[in-house]
């Protein structure tokens, strides 16, 4: 292990990750604010009106990045769950718990902005098509994860139970993503994907990608911030916590 450039296992220890997260999160928070300001400015003032939906389409700049984020955060939680079960590291469970509320927030935002967009464009707040239903299931998975892990008092057992929810639920993510391809849905197909050129005007695309990046930075910042609180709570009896400079008062 010692020949490696960075010893990753060192940061698997809460004691060494706590200060690292403390240094990193303000940078991500700063980036998030700047990108969000630029992204919203492009969304509202630079991006052109749509030929079909007029100004109403602008909710896409929140809706799509929030939906991407809700799916991606769940994948990251599943990744940490797999690491936690495999290597038996304490930090991975804490990372999952730190990410869950942000993921739930984005899933909710995605459903909510989707409803606001659906009413004027489709003519319905909600329909039970495959895309909308699978995203709703994702939201319930987040809520279920949070409820389950908070219902178990022993944090190590809570992490294990949560890890299983995260791993089983991750099957839902490809279902959400491909639902518009596999089945007839009211929801339209993807405008941006790996396999074909985006079907949006370039400035619209830029606005959406910058907003997506802003949401990424926000998620990283808030997860690091939250994981610090979780570390302190769980390790409150440890000597390293008692020796922290912020505890010397």
């Amino acid at each position, binding site marked *: 292990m010692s020949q490696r450039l960075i010893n990753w296992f060192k940061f698997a220890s809460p004691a060494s990750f706590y200060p690292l997260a403390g240094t990193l999160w303000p940078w991500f928070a700063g980036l998030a604010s700047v990108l969000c300001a630029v992204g919203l400015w492009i969304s509202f003032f630079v991006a*052109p009106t749509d030929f079909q939906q007029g100004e109403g389409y602008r909710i896409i700049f929140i809706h799509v990045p929030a939906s991407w984020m809700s799916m991606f955060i769940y994948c990251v939680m599943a990744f940490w769950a797999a690491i936690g079960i495999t290597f038996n590291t304490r930090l991975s469970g804490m990372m999952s718990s730190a990410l869950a509320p942000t993921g739930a927030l984005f899933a909710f935002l995605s459903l909510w902005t989707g409803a606001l967009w659906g009413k004027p*464009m*489709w003519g319905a707040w909600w329909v039970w098509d495959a895309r909308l239903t699978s995203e709703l299931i994702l939201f319930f998975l987040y809520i279920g994860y949070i409820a389950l892990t908070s219902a178990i008092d022993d944090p190590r057992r809570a992490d294990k139970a949560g890890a299983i929810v995260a791993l089983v639920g991750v099957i839902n993510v490809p279902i959400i993503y491909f639902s518009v391809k596999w089945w007839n849905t009211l929801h339209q197909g993807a405008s941006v994907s790996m396999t074909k050129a985006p*079907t949006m005007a370039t400035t619209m695309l830029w606005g959406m990608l910058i907003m997506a990046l802003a949401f990424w930075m926000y998620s990283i910042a808030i997860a690091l911030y939250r994981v610090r609180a979780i570390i302190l709570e769980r390790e409150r009896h440890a000597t390293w916590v008692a020796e922290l400079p912020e505890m010397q008062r």
Partner: protein
Amino acid sequence: MKPRQKRLAIVLGGLAAVGIAATLILNAFQSNLVFFFTPTQVAGGEAPKDRPFRIGGLVKEGSLQRNDITARFIVTDTAREIPVAYKGILPDLFSEGKGVVAQGTLGADGNFTASEVLAKHDENYMPPEAQAAVDKAHEASRTLKQ
């Protein structure tokens, strides 16, 4: 095998098992997961006969007629067509040549009586000028062909 590798194998094996189970379940429920039926599917007898269902397709160009508050139009998937009657307010994005999803029942005469009409828009977003240019190009290629 180290315990660590064993646990990783269990995680990956479990994921694969759940994945396969999900695939099988979704395959079994394939017909229930469909939000709407296309006119071709309806003609092929795939749509339920005894209960309301949704049909989806494009509103045929030039087919929309309004009579008081009853709107009549033809839903087409370019192969088959179904005439639809709907009493109510059509969504803003509803227009000829665009996507539509209608819920209702299919009469014995082949007419579809809709209780709800939803507009289905595509994933293309562009400024009106760009759309005008696209239309112009289409028009030009059409005249060239003729």
